[in-house]
């Protein structure tokens, strides 16, 4: 892909937010960025455009982006915009990749949202350990010519740290723990002001909707889930990495795009540790099918799904911030049960079943819901292996550490 072409017509292909990504991995400068996408139009009209576009949040929650803008706009007081690039899921790299390669697209989305809402302050929240991304942002922010007050804020790392209220707590210098809602951030966020917390990728799409409009946005994807989305693909594929796909693309097409499988897959994890396991390689990658923040893992048959799942369940239990009883004790119990099953020490399937039913929906945030879905679908998909583990304490494969934790 040429990076010098002056192309102010909208990107025609599936690569939209990634249209300008350079082969050498260097970020697009402001002038490269403007050459590629043209100038940014800002104004109140954005809210209607985003509404019409049908854009939904790409951070995992999938909430309609237009509705969120309107919720903030309806409040009294001067709002604040927060770019959420915390990306705490270990298997996810798409927001960081976006910031490293095309920072101005994300910043444009935040600037457009700020203009639409009358906000003057934008906070870009990036994980403490994301040093490369912060360095790129420092340079990008220095290039911008607008009247916004930009602040680059390192925030806590952690699986739950990207949850909106946890992120706001971290920004305020408190431990990154979710709060009970209401009040929602759109009501009371940074310094008590109505706050738009929006995922980095979502803002990048918004920057393109501001330029090319909702009809262009809807020309890819489905009526129900329009547009493109970023996915982070890992596991047994030739070229793991971040891909931009049309929403509704079959999983098998994504795998083909990544150079095909390197070995036979036993199952696929769709939606990361908030999603679920499936053996259907033709499943359409949609929000309705649990795509969440776009994490997809092709699990080779040569690794043990039971032990990998038990290891991640233990990680997720450790990532509970320990505020809510059902999450604190429930996720620990789930991990323990899986470990006993994996070691063939006890047939805890019945208890695991009961616990997953008890835990879901009972925290201040959705961490327990995601963890239970992950465990529940694992028990279903790896049923045969679970049987082997219960009889022999093993299934023939070992934990090769395919799942990051």
């Amino acid at each position, binding site marked *: 892909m040429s990076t010098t072409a002056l192309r102010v017509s909208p990107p025609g292909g599936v690569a939209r937010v990634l249209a300008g990504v350079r082969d050498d991995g260097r970020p697009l400068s402001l002038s490269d960025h403007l050459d590629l996408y043209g100038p940014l139009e800002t104004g109140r009209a954005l809210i209607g455009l985003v509404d019409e576009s049908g854009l939904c949040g790409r951070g995992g929650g999938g909430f309609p982006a237009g509705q969120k803008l309107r919720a903030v706009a309806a409040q009294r007081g001067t709002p604040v915009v927060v770019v959420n690039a915390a990306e705490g899921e270990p298997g996810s790299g798409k927001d960081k990749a976006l910031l490293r390669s095309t920072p101005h697209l994300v910043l444009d989305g935040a600037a457009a949202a700020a203009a639409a809402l009358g906000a003057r302050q934008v906070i870009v929240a990036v994980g403490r350990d994301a040093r490369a991304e912060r360095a790129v942002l420092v340079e990008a922010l220095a290039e911008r010519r607008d009247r916004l007050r930009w602040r680059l804020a390192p925030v806590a790392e952690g699986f739950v740290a990207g949850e909106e209220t946890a992120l706001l707590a971290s920004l305020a210098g408190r431990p990154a723990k979710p709060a009970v809602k209401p009040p929602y951030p759109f009501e009371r966020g940074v310094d008590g002001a109505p706050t738009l917390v929006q995922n980095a990728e979502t803002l990048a799409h918004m920057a393109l909707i501001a330029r090319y409009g909702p009809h262009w946005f809807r020309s890819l994807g489905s009526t129900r889930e329009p547009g493109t989305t970023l996915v982070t693909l890992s596991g047994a594929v030739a070229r793991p990495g971040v891909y931009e796909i049309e929403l509704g693309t079959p999983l098998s097409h994504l795998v083909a795009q990544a150079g095909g499988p390197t070995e036979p897959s036993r199952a696929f994890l769709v939606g990361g540790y908030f999603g679920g396991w499936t053996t259907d390689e033709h499943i359409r990658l949609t929000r309705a099918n649990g795509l969440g923040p776009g994490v997809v893992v092709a699990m080779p048959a040569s690794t043990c799904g039971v032990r990998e799942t038990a290891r991640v369940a233990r990680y997720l239990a450790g990532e509970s911030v320990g505020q809510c009883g059902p999450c604190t*004790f429930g996720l620990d119990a789930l991990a323990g049960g899986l470990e006993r099953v994996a070691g063939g020490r006890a047939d805890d399937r019945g208890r695991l079943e009961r616990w997953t039913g*008890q835990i879901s929906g009972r925290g201040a945030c959705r961490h327990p819901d995601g963890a239970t879905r992950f465990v529940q679908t694992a028990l279903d998909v790896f049923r045969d292996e679970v049987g082997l583990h219960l009889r022999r304490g093993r299934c023939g494969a070992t934990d090769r550490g395919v799942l990051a934790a």
Partner: protein
Amino acid sequence: MSDSLRVDPIACEGHGLCAELFPEWVSLDDWGYPIIDARPVPAALAQHARRAVRDCPKLALRLQENVSSGPS
């Protein structure tokens, strides 16, 4: 009365009084934390609900009008 009984899961420490005072609507999970029926509490049981709210040692319970959840 069409309010629902809700628990603040952060404030709740699993004392379990609610399940004793209002067993028709509250059961306990394996760790002693309340699992609450999300449906509106019928008028005939409102007295029990109010008592559970009043007597919770952590003041973690409340009766709340049914509202759809906002942005996540």
